[in-house]
């Protein structure tokens, strides 16, 4: 922490001595210890010592940003000069500013790594999968501990420090039997504790069991509309795509968002409540302050289907006249519904249970189409067989108004907390 304090102090002094008036410096250092396994066997033990310095200057309402990773005095001074030069070359825009309130000190998670325990848990996971899911092949496993320190300071007197540690796991796997294989699937988790076996994280057991049952597939029959149940692992990507299309900076600045006039209006089924909640206790190492220097707090973006705000930075808020979002994180929390997943499936005459979606970026109109991966057919209220070569298509905004179920169960993976979500009116195209 002392090195990043010295580096930020040096950068602030350099900005001041060059006559800058509004500026900020953010330094971070981290140590990552990581085990890798390929094809089910250990392959690599990696240790990285990383650092980063992000500088921002606003001069005559013109902004420049420079980032680098050297803390050496000459490099820091050069970066500061480069940042001011970038600002001077920029374009006047009164919307650029920095936070003038806030500040804090934060500590969370296991700062020191227990490498022997991390290795044991990793070996145990490979062994558990091999024993309990013999038809699953682990294509890649990456398990690590990250220790991070960061410090933000700006010329308006706002200062934050953060000291944190966490474990993370990323797994890619597929099912195999008789020379055939399932589509690959992946799982990722952040956790603050090694107390439980990795196999107990999130929904991992179900994902591995599903992979074994996805080896033998048939395409969905024909083409028609049906219900799609997105698993929590799949839902996150769909929701991020949706939010990028309707409530993010760029689409509100350029005016292409179809929700730009929907504030306070019903944009989704009343059953849907969606929050951005980095301070939720189920989120690991959540955002404490934004890159613009504001203290982060949780907020509700959609409450009982009503759009309550946009995911806007301070800059975009000034450009558009809407409010700045209280945090800049991607910590999605969707409130659970009142039905069990099995009850929801039991009410579906024809549809798909989709574990992964592989699709092109939705156009500005929200129309999406892509392949339903790691998916099962639902027929007459029952999950019947795994499908392949099956496409789904719909409209991102439109589907939120055609919810037919949100599960009572949720999955917390350390980055988000999401339920299963069932949507009607999706075009399903098989063979």
């Amino acid at each position: 922490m002392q090195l990043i304090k010295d580096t930020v102090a040096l950068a602030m002094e350099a900005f001041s001595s060059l006559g800058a008036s509004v500026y900020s410096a953010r330094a971070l250092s981290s140590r990552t210890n990581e085990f890798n396994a390929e094809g089910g066997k250990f392959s690599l033990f990696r240790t990285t010592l990383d650092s980063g310095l992000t500088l921002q200057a606003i001069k005559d309402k013109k902004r420049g940003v420079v980032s680098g990773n050297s803390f050496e005095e000459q490099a820091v001074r050069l970066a500061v000069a480069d940042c001011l030069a970038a600002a001077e070359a920029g374009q006047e825009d009164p919307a650029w500013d920095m936070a003038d309130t806030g500040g804090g000190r934060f500590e969370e998670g296991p700062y020191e790594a227990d490498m022997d325990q991390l290795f044991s848990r990793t070996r145990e996971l490979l062994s558990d999968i091999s024993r309990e899911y013999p038809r699953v092949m682990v294509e890649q496993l990456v398990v690590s501990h990250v220790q991070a320190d960061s410090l933000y300071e700006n010329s308006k007197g706002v200062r934050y420090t953060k000291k944190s540690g966490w474990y993370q796991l990323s797994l890619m796997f597929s099912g195999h039997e008789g020379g055939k294989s399932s589509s690959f699937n992946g799982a990722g988790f952040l956790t603050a504790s090694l107390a439980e076996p990795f196999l107990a994280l999130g929904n991992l057991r179900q994902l591995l069991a599903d992979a074994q049952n996805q080896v033998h597939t048939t395409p969905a029959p024909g083409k028609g509309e049906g219900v799609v149940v997105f698993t929590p692992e799949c839902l996150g990507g769909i929701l991020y795509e949706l939010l990028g299309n309707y409530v993010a900076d760029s689409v509100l600045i350029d005016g292409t968002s179809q929700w730009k006039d929907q504030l306070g209006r019903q944009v989704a089924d009343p059953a849907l409540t969606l929050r951005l909640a980095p301070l939720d206790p189920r989120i690991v190492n959540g955002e404490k302050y934004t890159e613009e220097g504001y203290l982060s707090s949780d907020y509700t973006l959609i409450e009982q289907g009503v759009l309550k705000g946009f995911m806007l930075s301070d800059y975009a808020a000034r450009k558009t006249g809407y409010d700045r979002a209280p945090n800049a994180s991607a910590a999605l929390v969707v409130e659970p519904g009142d039905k069990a997943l099995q009850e929801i499936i039991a009410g579906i005459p024809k549809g798909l249970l989709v574990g992964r979606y592989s699709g092109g970026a939705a156009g500005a109109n929200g129309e999406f189409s892509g392949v339903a991966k790691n998916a099962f057919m639902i027929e007459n209220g029952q999950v019947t067989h795994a499908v392949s070569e099956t496409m789904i298509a719909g409209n991102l905004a439109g589907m939120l108004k055609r919810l037919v179920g949100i599960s009572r169960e949720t999955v917390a993976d350390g980055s988000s907390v999401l339920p299963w979500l069932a949507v009607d009116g999706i075009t399903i195209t098989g063979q």
Partner: protein
Amino acid sequence: MISDIAGKLRGQFAPGAHSELRAQRSLSRRVTLLQGNLTRNARTDSQGVSARVYQGGVYGFASQAELSEAAARRALATATDNARFLDGHTGYQMGALPDIAAGAMAPQEDFTDLPQKHYLDFLRPLDDYIAGKYPDLASRTLVAYADSMEKQLITSDGYSAHLLAPRSYIYLFLNAQTGDGMPVEVFKVFGGSGTFDLQFKAPEDLYAQVDQLYEHLMKKREGVFAQAGKKTVILHGELAGMLAHEAVGHTVEADLVLGGSVAGPMLDEMVASPLVSMTDFAHTAFGQEAPLPVYVDDEGVLAQDAELIRNGRLTGYMVNRELGRHFSMRPQGNARAFAFNDEPLIRMRNTAVHPGLDKFEDMIASVEDGYYLISSNNGQADTTGEFMFGISLGYEIKNGRLGRAIFDTTISGVAFDMLKTVDRVSDRVSWSSSGFCGKKQLMPVGLGGPDLRCDVMIGGK
């Protein structure tokens, strides 16, 4: 250029353990004009050293975010300790890696790091041209982007090299609204390897291509939804390249073969039409420098082309040194690392379908009812070979003629089934190189190919 840091430590390698030491500096510069607003004006500079040591069948790796001899020593010591730790805890007892050719490649030519003002001064008049000529646009976004990797590599038993690889691009996005208010977008990427000032001489040079893109947008504004189902299509070379990379290339990366990819049991089998040949080119393709040339990889292997498919038959995988031994294949320079703190992984370089003999115009004329698919906004594939590409620009083909533009859609198929339906291959090749491949790390890659006539599933209404 970075000074000779790694070379001084050659004598510090542990005897008998294959070792690599790499000093690296990566730069990126980005300027974004969104509706004329400078929303991004950023420069990044990342540098450091890393070491990797092989022992008993496992690797130890370590990096330090500092370009100094002392940091290199620390990285090498930690990598050696990590290799010992993992070797001691696993006991795989694998022997040394097979020998490879050793040598030294002379440093490549240095390049000029342009100030941020250069990118802004180029982009502004281009933005003014678009805003002035096309006031009916709903929005426009222009991005100037340049990045570079400089690597100094020494290895215990392979090639040493000092490599520099700059590339520069302009991304242009144009938006309009249909008659009923639905937004539509088209985009185009200009540029390639080399510094920004060499790639882009004057904004006026791009005006004609901007005008063409606007014409596509106006047609897309009047577009229709594609009809879902299996269709005969002409894939533009850009999409053929994406197919080569995503749907075939990844399945023949040896680490994914080891993980159970569909290509594993297909070596020496017919996997495509006899009209289809495919190669991962190292630095020279079809008589010209490839878009992103690789001369030595990050394991110190002198780069050569990796033939993947010859006349429809699967002929090889892409390997690193370790999996080359496993599969009894010669490493050809596919082990690449993105940042200084990344270990080398099996990656593609410039992956392309070879051109054929057909004329593009004849291929369009040969389709009674299908689509001409021109550009994509993303693509993904599975280790089963099942792929998906987002289509951002395409046209109907009716009775051998191009028809109405189509709205964004998606195509999908199973690569080794779809490639068997290829029955025409054009004599022209298109390359793209502006994106990154993602596989634990990012990596710049080139991809290319000719126009292909084939059958695919298309999503839509």
